[in-house]
């Protein structure tokens, strides 16, 4: 079986093309098991596409992308990876509990196991009191939590969460981040969370900073701050973006970057 020290996700030369646009350009990174990894970057930098590639719903993926020891999108991974899309993907004309019950049976859970998993997922996202309300009548944040609860069903080993805390109040956001850490610490789950809010980065074990379809940095928050001499992850990100911009605009002036133009000329 799988080596538990093997990374949960390993990408090498990962490229995704949509139409004529290269959305992800030859990415290489790993996501360690049992930790909370943040995928940060401005909107439109390719975070969602990367997440869709990892769960196997993205077409035109080339390069290597291994998830839990198998090629991403392998049929056997479908019950081991929990995925939350940016927009809540639940049935608005069903109650929260009915939504969870259906998705639990799609995972192949028997009736008794279904009830247990559904109750636990509702408790995890703090929606027990709204379990029997129609999802369509819930607030946007509550509906998002129903969607998150669906991903928790069946104790997936890898959770891929696309901006799960957007638009939530600070208390809820804190509670959800505590939940993500409990999932990693107590259940050994690997959690990959995207966000464009940099202050959430401080709460992750590791960070993947993305920009324009590439990985800008792959480090711990502490490591990032130290290597860039910044006080916050946000500052570190800006520092890296400036460095990258300077590199692409005036490559000859940046001593730390190889002068690719001269190399090409040779």
């Amino acid at each position, binding site marked *: 079986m799988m080596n538990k020290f093997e990374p949960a996700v390993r990408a090498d030369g990962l490229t995704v093309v949509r139409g004529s646009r290269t959305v992800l350009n030859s990415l290489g990174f790993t996501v360690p098991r049992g930790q909370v990894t943040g995928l940060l970057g401005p909107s439109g930098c390719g975070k969602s596409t990367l997440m869709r590639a990892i769960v196997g719903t993205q077409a035109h993926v080339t390069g290597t992308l291994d998830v839990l020891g198998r090629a991403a999108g392998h*049929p056997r991974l479908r*019950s081991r990876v929990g995925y939350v899309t940016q927009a809540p993907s639940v049935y608005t004309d069903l109650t929260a509990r009915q939504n969870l019950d*259906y998705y639990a049976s799609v995972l192949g859970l028997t009736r008794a196991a279904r009830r247990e998993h559904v109750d636990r997922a509702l408790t995890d996202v703090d929606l027990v009191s709204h379990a029997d309300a129609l999802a369509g009548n819930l607030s946007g944040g509550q509906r998002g939590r129903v969607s998150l609860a*669906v991903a928790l069903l069946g104790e997936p080993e890898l959770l891929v969460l696309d901006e799960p805390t957007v638009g939530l109040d600070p208390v809820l956001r804190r509670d959800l981040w505590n939940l993500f850490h409990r*999932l990693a*610490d107590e259940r050994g789950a690997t959690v990959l969370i995207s966000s464009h809010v940099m202050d959430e980065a*401080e709460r992750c074990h590791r960070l993947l900073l993305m920009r324009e379809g590439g990985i800008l940095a792959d480090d711990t928050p502490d490591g990032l701050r130290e290597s860039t001499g910044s006080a916050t992850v946000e500052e570190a990100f800006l520092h890296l973006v400036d460095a990258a911009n300077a590199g692409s605009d005036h490559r000859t002036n940046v001593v730390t970057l190889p002068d690719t133009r001269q190399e090409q000329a040779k």
Partner: protein
Amino acid sequence: MNAHPSPAGTLPRTPSGGTPKDPSEATSERAPRAFSLLRTLATARRVLRQLGHDRRTIALMLVVPCLLLAVLSWVYDGKQHTFDQVGASLLGIFPLILMFLVTSIATLRERTSGTLERLLSMPLGKADLLGGYALAFGGVAVVQACLATGLAVWGLGLDVVGSPWLLLVIALADAFLGIALGLFVSAFAASEFQAVQFMPAVLLPQLLMCGLLVPRDTMQPVLAAVSDVLPMSYAVDGMTQVVQHTGVTGDFVRDLAVVAACALVALALGAATLRRRTA
């Protein structure tokens, strides 16, 4: 600064789970089967539960065909022969149109709301999804066909030479054809507006040429040839066979087979439009 927040509070535990699990034994890894009865029935139950929260749609689906039949018999008051012909045709056309509309909108919503993407990233077979929809809407179609056929035959005096059960059988086949066509066209609609427009685009030409307005053998040869390859022609023809003949005629069997085959082809084409990976 605390970069590694420690957990606050504890999770409710599973009876089995005490310590963090070894990832390699956390989930028994199973290859999902292409078709599973459990998942198909769960999907059918989910679709029916959705309908259950929408009483008005149920009422419209069941009552409107009956009302239309009643109006029709009133329109043809004193012209029993015409009512027999047109009424029988409509008993085949109603389930087709109704199921087409309901299915195309329902599956379009599934595609646009992200629930389809989520389902296809989970261990759900395409056959489970299609089968679940066919089962749930097929069940509604049975109720609707029973009500409409019962009203037409016993309430409005539709003169049927053959068995009313055969009427029900062909009405059901028509309903399945509607479900299959609806599933298929929903792949080409980007919005509910477009999905609704597919009804006149796909079904009205068939309605004009199916023999409801003019007998098919008296139509202009080109139109007659076109109507020969349109499935609704056989749906209506099957109904007419039952109205005019006792017992199961060869034509009835042919009509039933053509409608069923068209439904299966449309269903297979519909399945091909469900992609696990999308751009």
